[in-house]
């Protein structure tokens, strides 16, 4: 049986900073970004086939745990990332919006698949033509459904946003204006 060597364990690179014997100094923003980036708790909002791809993404082969996201949160209060996967009917819209409103800041939204992003093939009276009509979206993952690699790519894009986001962004007037444009708060 192969033993795991210490070198096989991937540790995130430390952010830029000043280093000397016995101390390391960096900005709070960079330290917080590093911690948040590698401990995102996703809330899977799976309504159809993209949800199945998400299950594969969480499974041993693709293993989203490698990105620090093995702990799914089924309570929006504890979740950092809302992953919307699948067709959102107009009747489901208010439910999705309520879930988003219940999430604490900072919160991110990943729209997985053609249906969540644009309504997909369901150009019909009963289907929401993209979740960005009711909540702001950070990253879109195209595909019908996208492969687990694409979902992981979307997660990595979210990780980049999380890592580089200014700590004051959520208090900024631009962000408030964005939420107000959706009628939130």
């Amino acid at each position, binding site marked *: 049986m192969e033993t795991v060597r210490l070198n096989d364990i991937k540790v995130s690179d430390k952010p830029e900073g000043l280093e000397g014997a016995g101390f390391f100094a960096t900005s709070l923003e960079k330290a917080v970004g590093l911690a948040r980036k590698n401990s995102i708790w996703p809330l899977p909002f799976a309504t159809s086939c993209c949800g199945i791809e998400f299950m594969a993404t969480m499974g041993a082969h693709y293993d989203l745990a490698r990105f620090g996201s093995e702990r799914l949160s089924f309570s929006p209060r504890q979740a950092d990332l809302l992953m919307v996967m699948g067709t959102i009917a*107009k*009747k489901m*819209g208010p439910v999705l919006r309520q879930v988003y409103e219940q999430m604490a800041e900072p919160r991110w939204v990943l729209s997985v698949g053609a249906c969540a992003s*644009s*309504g997909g093939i369901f*150009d*019909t*009276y*009963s*289907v929401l*033509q993209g979740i960005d009509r009711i909540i702001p979206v950070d990253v879109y993952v195209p595909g019908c459904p996208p492969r687990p690699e694409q979902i992981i790519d979307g997660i990595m894009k979210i990780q980049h946003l999380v890592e580089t986001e200014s700590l004051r962004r959520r208090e900024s007037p631009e962000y408030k204006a964005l939420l107000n444009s959706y009628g939130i708060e």
Partner: protein
Amino acid sequence: MESNSTEPTEHDKIISILKEKYDGEILHVDTPYNLLTVTLKQERIIEIIQYLYDHAQVKFQYLTTLCAIHYPDLKQIAMMYQLRSLENNLEVRLKIYLPEENPVTPTLTSIFAAANWMERETYDFYGVNFQGHPSLRRILNVDDMVIFPMRKEYPLEDQTREDKNNAMFGR
């Protein structure tokens, strides 16, 4: 397939039972896909279904389904009731035509409790007003919808989009 035997078929039996009491109500009889379909005048439909329910020789006591059909060319909405007799292994479809402008018909929930949700669905999609229904409100679509989407005057596609045009979809 034409039947030349002198034995009355099951269809003939159902028709004769209907004609016993409601001869004047029958407008048309047809058997598409071998399913007996009787078009009736709209006024006494519930009474007729009750009659078929109670009649000892047929006992149509199971409501398979009911739904509406929109005929925009006729400017009419048809109601279709499909009844089954589990005891006698018979099936019949009854059809009435209502005006497109104001489709009103009495509820079937007085006979079949199962008609409750079917009529709500029919109201939801076609706007048929079932008089006497215990709670006639939308069942599948969003409550604030103002159209009856399965009527053919409404386009199937979501009308709020600008980026999905025919060129992009090869239509």
